[in-house]
């Protein structure tokens, strides 16, 4: 060891400062968000429907992008080498989340998105196929913790994805509807909340009026699927891809596995967009990178959320700009849809 160190010492002395600088660039993280192209995932490899249908000739895939919250200096520098990548300043409300919390949020969004896709697809298929069982008792409502602000009084005591059960409000009233929380709370007071964690254990946390009034604790209501009340059954494979943006394509794929006619017509179909319980399609982020991903993976057509006047910037217009930048002809390739029914109708008209 000594001999080699002595031999290399002149080089070590020369390189030690550049080496430390390089390591600093590689480990120091900054408050930006980078979107880069990812890949496409065939939905049937993630959601398996236990039902016999005719052979499906084409494929339906969701598109994922790599989103890097708080990249290193080095990542920030190299991201400029690709025309597909995009850098934005990390939104204020995201900055305090750890990597693990970001993953939890992402997988919570994915889990609820898959359930929304199942609900919409089964309801639609139920209209065309009598064998599909889906009714009012096939779903149940939950209120989940989907976000926590940095100034939440009991930040570490409440888990992301945990279920809100009730609050013991003024005059010991038990409030179970989260919309009514404000009505049973007084400014400056603290109240006991009951939550259920992923292991189905109930725990109590004392939260202040301000935690709720200032939305330091973000609660969101979801519909989840009661698997004992539906036919056919479905299983969801473990996946390392999170987020809700695969909802539209998941719904299409599940629907295709529940009806006899193959809606893919042998095409390689991809796209992006969230799915709402009423079958409408919601906006997503990372459009430019998703278009690039679909282009790299040579898909035949790409579904995108249609223009929705409730938003200020539009996914479809971003997608058109991306197509122009990458030299893609959007005619017949980029298909804007406002609802799942529009996507099914479009595929029905494809020769």
């Amino acid at each position, binding site marked *: *060891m000594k*001999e*080699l*160190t002595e*031999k*290399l010492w002149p080089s070590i002395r020369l390189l030690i400062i550049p*080496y430390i600088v*390089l*390591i600093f660039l*590689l*480990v120091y993280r900054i408050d930006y968000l*980078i979107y*880069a*192209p*990812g*890949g496409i*995932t*065939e939905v049937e*490899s*993630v959601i398996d429907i236990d039902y016999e249908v005719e052979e499906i000739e084409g494929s339906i895939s969701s598109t994922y992008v*790599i989103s*890097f919250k708080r*990249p*290193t200096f*080095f*990542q920030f520098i*190299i*991201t400029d*080498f*690709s025309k*597909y*990548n995009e850098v934005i300043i990390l939104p204020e409300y995201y900055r305090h989340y750890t990597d693990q919390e970001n993953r939890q949020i992402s997988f919570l969004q994915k889990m609820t998105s898959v359930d929304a896709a199942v609900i919409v697809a089964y309801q639609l298929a139920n209209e065309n196929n009598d064998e599909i069982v889906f009714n009012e008792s096939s779903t149940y409502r939950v209120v989940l913790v989907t976000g926590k602000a940095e100034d939440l009084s009991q930040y570490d005591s409440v888990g992301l994805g945990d279920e809100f059960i009730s609050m013991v409000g003024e005059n010991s009233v038990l409030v179970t509807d989260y919309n009514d929380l404000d009505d049973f709370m007084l400014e400056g007071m603290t109240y006991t909340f009951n939550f259920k964690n992923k292991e189905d254990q109930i725990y109590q946390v004392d939260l202040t009026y301000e935690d709720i009034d200032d939305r330091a604790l973000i609660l969101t209501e979801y519909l989840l699927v009661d698997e004992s009340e539906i036919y056919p059954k479905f299983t969801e*494979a473990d*996946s*390392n*891809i999170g987020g809700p943006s695969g909802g539209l394509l998941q719904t299409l794929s599940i629907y295709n596995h529940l009806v006899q006619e193959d809606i893919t017509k042998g095409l390689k179909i991809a796209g992006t967009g969230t799915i709402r319980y009423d079958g409408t399609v919601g906006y997503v982020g990372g459009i430019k990178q998703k278009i*690039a*991903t679909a282009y*790299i993976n040579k898909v035949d057509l790409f579904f995108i959320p249609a223009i929705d006047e409730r938003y200020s910037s539009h996914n479809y217009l971003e997608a058109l700009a991306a197509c122009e930048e990458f030299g893609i002809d959007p005619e017949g390739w980029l298909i804007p849809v406002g609802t799942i029914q529009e996507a099914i109708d479009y595929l029905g008209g494809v020769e």
Partner: protein
Amino acid sequence: MKTYFNSWKLLKKEVGSAEIIDALFASLFYSFIILIPIILIFAQFISMFYYLLNLWVVLIILVTMGISMLQLLMWKKTILLKKKFVSVNINQLLSKLFVIYSAVIIVVGLLFIFVFIPMMQI
């Protein structure tokens, strides 16, 4: 094969086990110092250019082979710094070791390209 092991035995006799192992650790230590930023650089390039994943794996295979060669060269250099005149042909000894290292690296790399990466993409 027998000649190969005999050469190692002869080297052990001439230089000494402790010295050979010390030289090995020295070469591993400095290779590791070089490896750290390379791992970080590759990880970050992969994260930003994920769609070129197979290309990155090929480059990782080549770079890993380069580093293993560097480690073996440093091992040889240290042995020669410890004992100037050695009758055994160290180059021949280490080049066989390099072939084994390279075979393992290539097999693992190909496993990634054809098995693990397709499995990960769900």
